[in-house]
């Protein structure tokens, strides 16, 4: 995306930014961007006319194209809040007492409070930068111990051998585990694959012709597997491979096999992470698809 010349870009050029950050021009976060837009229009943060900056904020996000959503969620939260506030202003609001208005006011105050807090730290960071700049003009004396003093040191006791040294080097040079933090693994890639569960069901139903849902999930290892099998049955139903019978509400659900004796059944993997067209599902494949979160 292009950097328009009139943009107020605080801080060092983009080259100084690390790659892990949302790369939205030079801005290191939604507050940074919002503050710069406010500065550009010479608005006071506390009197910010949101409509003036909302469009530009949204435009910036739009221009960013593809980015890592987990990093960019804050941008979206801020954008959504700005949009809400703008929309509320465009529509006539007869009474302020309505709950929605109060929510909007709260959202706005929260946004302002966070923006002001961020601005304070940004300003104090500029102060720290000046200080660092000043301090860098002095260098500490830091020299190797003179030989006659080094000679005073007790003879080193080295209690490890070359093998231990190799172990230490290997440990240090191996990739580090990710820092302890929020594990977002569970947010991605279903742990249980619907398509795999469909394979299991196809095989069983072809053999048994009919089975209750209770029986089909008796061996399920946990709720996710039960859910996956239920979704798989819906898919199979859509393909006309199964029919359902239920005596009454909350009664046992009986699943009847109505599909072909052989061959694959197309199960769309809407639910799974893998992209691509629906693949035919056979019985348990001989490739032994065991990975659960490919």
């Amino acid at each position: 995306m292009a950097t328009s010349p009139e943009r107020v870009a605080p801080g060092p050029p983009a080259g100084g930014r690390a790659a892990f950050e949302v790369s939205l021009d030079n801005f290191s976060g939604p507050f940074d961007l919002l503050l710069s837009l406010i500065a550009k229009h010479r608005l006071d943060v506390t009197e910010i006319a949101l409509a003036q900056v909302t469009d530009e904020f949204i435009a910036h996000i739009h221009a960013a194209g593809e980015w890592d959503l987990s990093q960019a969620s804050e941008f979206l939260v801020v954008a959504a809040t700005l949009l809400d506030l703008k929309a509320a202003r465009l529509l006539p609001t007869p009474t302020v007492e309505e709950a929605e208005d109060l929510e909007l006011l709260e959202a706005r105050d929260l946004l302002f409070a966070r923006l002001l807090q961020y601005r304070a730290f940004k300003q104090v960071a500029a102060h720290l930068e000046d200080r660092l700049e000043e301090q860098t003009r002095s260098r500490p004396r830091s020299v190797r111990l003179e030989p006659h003093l080094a000679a005073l040191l007790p003879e080193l006791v080295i209690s490890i051998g070359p093998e231990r040294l190799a172990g230490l080097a290997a440990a240090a040079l191996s990739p580090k585990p990710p820092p302890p933090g929020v594990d977002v693994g569970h947010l991605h890639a279903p742990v249980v694959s619907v398509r795999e569960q469909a394979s299991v069901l196809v095989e069983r139903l072809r053999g048994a012709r009919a089975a209750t849902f209770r029986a089909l999930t008796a061996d399920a290892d946990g709720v996710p597997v039960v859910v996956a099998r239920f979704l798989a049955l819906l898919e199979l139903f859509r393909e006309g491979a199964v029919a359902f019978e239920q005596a009454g509400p909350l009664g046992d659900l009986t699943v009847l096999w109505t599909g072909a004796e052989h061959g694959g059944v197309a199960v769309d993997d809407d639910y799974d992470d893998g992209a691509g067209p629906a693949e035919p599902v056979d019985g348990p494949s001989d490739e032994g698809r065991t990975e659960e979160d490919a």
Partner: protein
Amino acid sequence: MTETAPALDVDRVLAALEAVLMVADEPVPVAGLAAAVGLPVEEAEALLSELAADYRGERGGRPRGFELRDVGGGWRVYSSPVHADVVGAFVLDGQTARLTQAALETLAIVAYRQPISRGRIAAVRGVSVDGVVRTLLSRGLVEEAGHDDAGGATLYRTSRYFLERFGLRSLEELPPLAPYLPEADALLDLDGVAS
């Protein structure tokens, strides 16, 4: 200065302090220096201040090209900033590596809100700070400070090296944050604006 000691003894102690400071590779706490020269801490402190003044040219001599400073929890010899250009031509080290805006902001948040978890820093900055915190850790400017009681998240604080690099004796010397924050009134007044 000790008033009872003969001048020669004071000179000798001053020189001994200088000799020790020459081999130090980090700020030396006054207690360590006092122990080395066998003086009570208060007297050692007074002599160190004397030395610092002497180097600044406040004791009759010319200003020296080096300074004795009390930062980061101890005393250490530095080159004088007046001659930074000349020194820079000779001494290449990691000091000149600049911190990015993101790193400075993160450092500021840690400095004023320590101990603090990455999650809470991210909440202030509005973006993930994992990479920045790693950078600050590797630069030795912040360090781990145990875990959050509630969630068990790792907490971070600024290091002694941070104090030294920013020329601070202690965190109390950080400029107050309050003037940068709007008045409470301004916050309360938000309802009255932008409508």
